[in-house]
Structures are given as C-alpha cells and as structure tokens.
C-alpha cells in the first residue's frame, strides 16, 4: 500500500512513518499543504492521512480542493480537535474517517483497513507466496483456490508474519500488536491464534515454526 502523510509535526510524522514502514507500507510525507498538493499531483496513493491544522492553511480546504478535482483517493483526517462539530465538518467535506490524536496505531491501522475495504476494487494488493493468495484488505486467504475469511486478529497476525518471512517474533511482541494495551492476560491467547493460522495454512508451502523460548517464525518450504 502506498500512503501519503500530511502532518506538520516532524516528530509525530517520523513515528508514524517508522511504524507504517514496519508494517510494510510505502509512505510519503508532506509537512505542509503545498508539498501535499505537489505529491498528489505526481504520485498515486491508496490513502491519504491528513492533519487539520497545518502551517500554510487548514487541512479541510485541501480536502475540499482534493474532492473538487475529482480524485477519490480515500482520506483519513488526523485531528487533535475534540469538538464533534469539527469532526462532522471533516466528514461532510469528504473525509472517509477520522482519528483523534493521540491515537492508537492499531486503531489507525484498523481504520485504514476499513476505509480501504470500503473503497475496494481499486486498491487490491494481493500477496502471492508459497501457494497462497492473501488479500489483507479484504481479509481473504486462498490456499489452493480454497478461500477462507480470516478474523481480524488472524489477519493481522498473518500480515505481520508475511511482511517479515523468516524473522522471529516473540510472543510478547505479537501480543502487543494484536491486543490493546489494556488487556494484559493475552500472551497465552497468541498460541490460540497461531494454532488457527497453522490450520488455515495447511496444504500450502508456508509453515509457522515454534522456536522454544524465542517465539514464532514464518517459514517458506520450497
């Protein structure tokens, strides 16, 4: 997926960029409206993350202009304003969704996924590897032509593993990505999800290996 982030706060932008890269997305960063316009004119994006308060204007005017020029790239507004009227204003102007700062990255990711799914058809990015066809946007996994609908956590777990085939993930790391920070007792639940994924992947060349004491790894038997 190719994202455009329009955010003037450099620190926050860096954090979002590094997190998005970690998730395997390509992301460009514009710090002001002028740059953002230039980026949109030259590149094609699957999704735009747009801050509202920018040094050279209001993000909503960009949104309006963007919609007026007949581009239907989905836009998620990042807002620190908390007034409902403000949120509704952005949605009326054609934003597809919004998140309120500070946001949970998992929530941002979930919202991106939801928006992309709603706009599906255009932004299909399927991964074909080891005899499976995986569509993270739609949440489909096809093993030898047999399509399985993945639950959200299974989907996120598989996405995480596929993006870094051969890399070891500790149980804790996986838990931190799959569960919100307020439910603690979830490390054991990882085993449940790993077991389910293994079942889904049966018959393909992909295999989740348990490394005792270290974690899990997705291996590609060829």
């Amino acid at each position, binding site marked *: 997926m190719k994202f455009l982030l329009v955010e003037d706060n450099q*620190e926050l932008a860096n*954090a979002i960029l590094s*997190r998005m890269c970690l998730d395997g997305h390509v992301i460009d960063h514009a710090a002001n409206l002028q740059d953002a316009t230039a980026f949109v004119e030259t590149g094609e994006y699957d999704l735009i993350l747009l801050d509202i308060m920018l040094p050279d204007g209001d993000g909503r005017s960009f949104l309006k202009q963007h919609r007026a020029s007949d581009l239907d790239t989905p836009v998620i507004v990042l807002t620190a304003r*908390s*007034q409902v009227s403000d949120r509704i204003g952005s949605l009326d102007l054609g934003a597809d969704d919004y998140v309120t700062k*500070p946001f949970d990255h998992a929530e941002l990711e979930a919202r991106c996924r939801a928006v992309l799914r709603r706009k599906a058809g255009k932004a299909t990015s399927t991964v074909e590897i080891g005899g499976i066809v995986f569509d993270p946007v739609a949440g489909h996994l096809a093993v030898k032509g047999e399509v399985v609908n993945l639950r959200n956590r299974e989907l996120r777990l598989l996405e995480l593993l596929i993006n870094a085939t051969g890399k070891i993930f500790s149980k*804790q790391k996986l838990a*931190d990505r799959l*569960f*919100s920070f307020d439910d603690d007792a979830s490390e054991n639940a990882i085993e449940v999800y790993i077991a389910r994924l293994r079942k889904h992947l049966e018959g393909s060349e992909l295999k989740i290996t348990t490394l005792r004491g270290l974690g899990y790894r997705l291996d590609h038997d060829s």
Partner: protein
Amino acid sequence: MTASLIASGSLRNRLVLTLIGGAAILTLLLFFAIRNYAIQIAQQGQDNILGASATSILDAASIRDGTLEIDIPYASFSMLSTPSDDRVFYAIYQDGNFLSGYAGLSNPSVNPGRRSSFETTQFQGETVRVATAARTLIGAENRTQIRVYLAQTQDALSGTLDKISRNAALFGAGFFALATLLSFWASSTTIGQLKRLTTSVTRRGPQDLRPFEKPVPSEMLALVTSLNSLMGRLDQSLRQSEDFIAEAAHRVRTPLATVRSYAEATLQRVDKQENRQAMRSMIRAIDESSRAAGQLLDHAMTTFRADHLERQEIDLVELVGELVERLTPIADMKDVRLNLRSEGKITCSGDPILIQNAVRNLIDNALKYAPGESAVDIAMIMNPDIQIKVCDSGPGFPPNEIDILATRFTRGQNAAGTIGSGLGLTIAQDVAMAHGGDLLLSNRPEGGACATLSL
C-alpha cells in the same frame, strides 16, 4: 445559568394605572364642572322667576288716599308653581315695618340699598331661596319704600339637580369606561412591541447570536442596540473560548500523540522484559491522560448543551447505525461483533450530538469490557418510551456498586485493569436526564453488563 430576576412592578400595569388614574381625575373634574354649571343655570332660572314674581307684587302696590295698597296678583304666585308643589313664603315691609306675610322671613342682613338680591337661607327647617325687591312709592305727601321678600322651597330644583347629577355621573362613567378600554388597548399595543422582541429573543437557539435586524420603535432602538452589541461580544467570547479549547486540545494532544507513537515504535524493537513493561506502562498512562482530557471536554460540552437543549427530529436508527459503522473498525480489532437490532423506524426529538455522544460512551464501555470474539448487542426498542440498550458479555457491573457507577469519576472495582476516566456513564446519564429519561444499569442473567438509555 439562569438567575431569576425580581420584577420591579410591571410597565404595563404602571401605564394602565397612570392612564386610568388620569381618566378618573378627568371624569371627576368633568362631573363637578357639569354639576356646578347646572346648579348655576337652575338657580338662575329660579331667581329670575322669583325676581319677576317679586317685581309683579311690587308693581301691584300703589298709594291710594295716602294709604298703601297691595293687591297681590294671582299670577305672582301662580308663576311660581312647580311640579314638586314647592311652597312659597312672602313678607312685605313698608319702611322697615312688617306689613304682611311671614314675619320671620325678613333678613336684616340684606342690604336694603340694592334693588333686588337673592339669597339661600333656612326657613321653617327648609332650605329656601329668598328674593328681595324694593320699590319706592312716591305719594302726594310722602314717599315710602316697600320691600318684598319672596321665598320658595327648592324641592323641584333639587329634583332637577339630582337628575342632572345622575346624567352627569352616567356620562362620566361612560367616559371613564371608554378611557379605561383605550388605556388597556394603548398599553398592550405599546407592550406588544416589547413582547415581540422578547419572543424573538426567546425563540432563538443557544448558538444563534446574530444581531436583530427587524425595525423596532425608536424608543427601543437604544435597548436593541445595546442588546446587539452584548450579543456580539458574547458571540466573540464564545468563539474565542471554542477556539481556545480546540487549540488547547491540539497543543496537548499532538505531543501526546508523538510520545505514544514513539513508545509504540520503540516497543517493537525492545526485547528486554523490564523495558517492555516500562514502555507498556507508559503507553497506558498516555492513553489514560488523553482519554481523560477527551472525556472532560466531552463532559463540559454535554453539560453546556444539556443546559441549552436544542431539540430536533432525529432518526435514531440512522444515528445509531452511523455510530456503529464508525466503531466497527475498533470492534474488529478485538473480533467483537456489533449487532444492531431495531424495530422499524424510531424517531425522537432531541439533540443529536448529545445522544450520539451518550450512545458512543455506552458502546465504548461495552467494547472495552467485552471479551475477544464475542458480540455486543445494541437494541432500540419503543415500549412506548424509546430505549437504547447496549449489552456485552463481559464481567458485568459489580452488584454492590451498580447504583453509584454513574457518579462522576467513579469506576467499578473490577475496572482496575482497563483504561477509563470514570466519566462515560456520567455523560450518558446527563444526556438521558436532559431528555427527560434516565440510565439504567443491570447485569444479564447469562453474564455481562447491560446499560439501558431511556429518552
């Protein structure tokens, strides 16, 4: 917010009282003036007849052979006859000596020099009008002065006067009644202008701070001008405080967002158990504070809007449907299903922003406590009150605390591990109460919490 003003009298009453008081004084003056004038005219009429009668008596006097002869003509008395059978007295004096008639009638105080005079006095216990006339007869050898006193009771006169007074009083009463009606009409048209202004102020919504533009009477121009300038200032200060809240939220939340993002990114790279635990605690603390900030703002907004409830027709099914759609990505993260169930079309009158806020808090709560891969049921019922029911299959409300959970900053004992501000249920309850309903907390028999918002 709304202090009750003490009314210092009523402008309308004051106006009506002044007008009616003026009319009453005028009526009394008019009554007495008419009556006085009538008395004068009537008295003059009686005087004229008395005078003429006295003169005719004097005219009948003559000196024959040196002796005075008076043959009182019949007409002299007949002209004095009245419908009320007034009595007539007379007395004749020659050069101060009583000649004939009623001796007691003479009145020494009357100046004999004048040819005729009139006076009202008491005689035989009755009020009489006395006419005095004198004539000097010149005989062959002497001259003699004859003085005639002619008195008449005033029964007919007072009867006439009574009639006139009655008519004058009737006339005055009519005038007074008309003036009263007029003053009521005049005051209500005057006050009507004020009332119209009041209604147009009252009918405005809390957000409507536009100046008045309709023409007003010149006397109210100053009032409306200062009202407009007051609203202008109010509007500006509201706008400023709204901007301030937005700006403050921006200033607080952007750095928090940065810290949170970094913490999360770092957590991905850190392997050491203690460091991971510290990072986790950090993220939780950030979530706590940002959620508290958001809820405080929401709570302030709820309180403000509930104070100035602006009702409009809402399609509840659509409103809650949008909310559920918006919250679905969050629910998906836990693989929790949001089941929305409603019976047909449900509309109600209320503040959509408030109701949305309340229901969002209830669903947020349910999502927080619901276990993974469960379902949260949202039901809208009309029986006949509108109820929005949000039920999860989490641990439920602690039974001994269920009554106090909606109190501000109160959280259940079993909520220790969950991020929250203790304001969500308070907000929902405030919204329900502002709409004349309430919030009912219960536990499902099969386990799980149930919050019912009635409107």
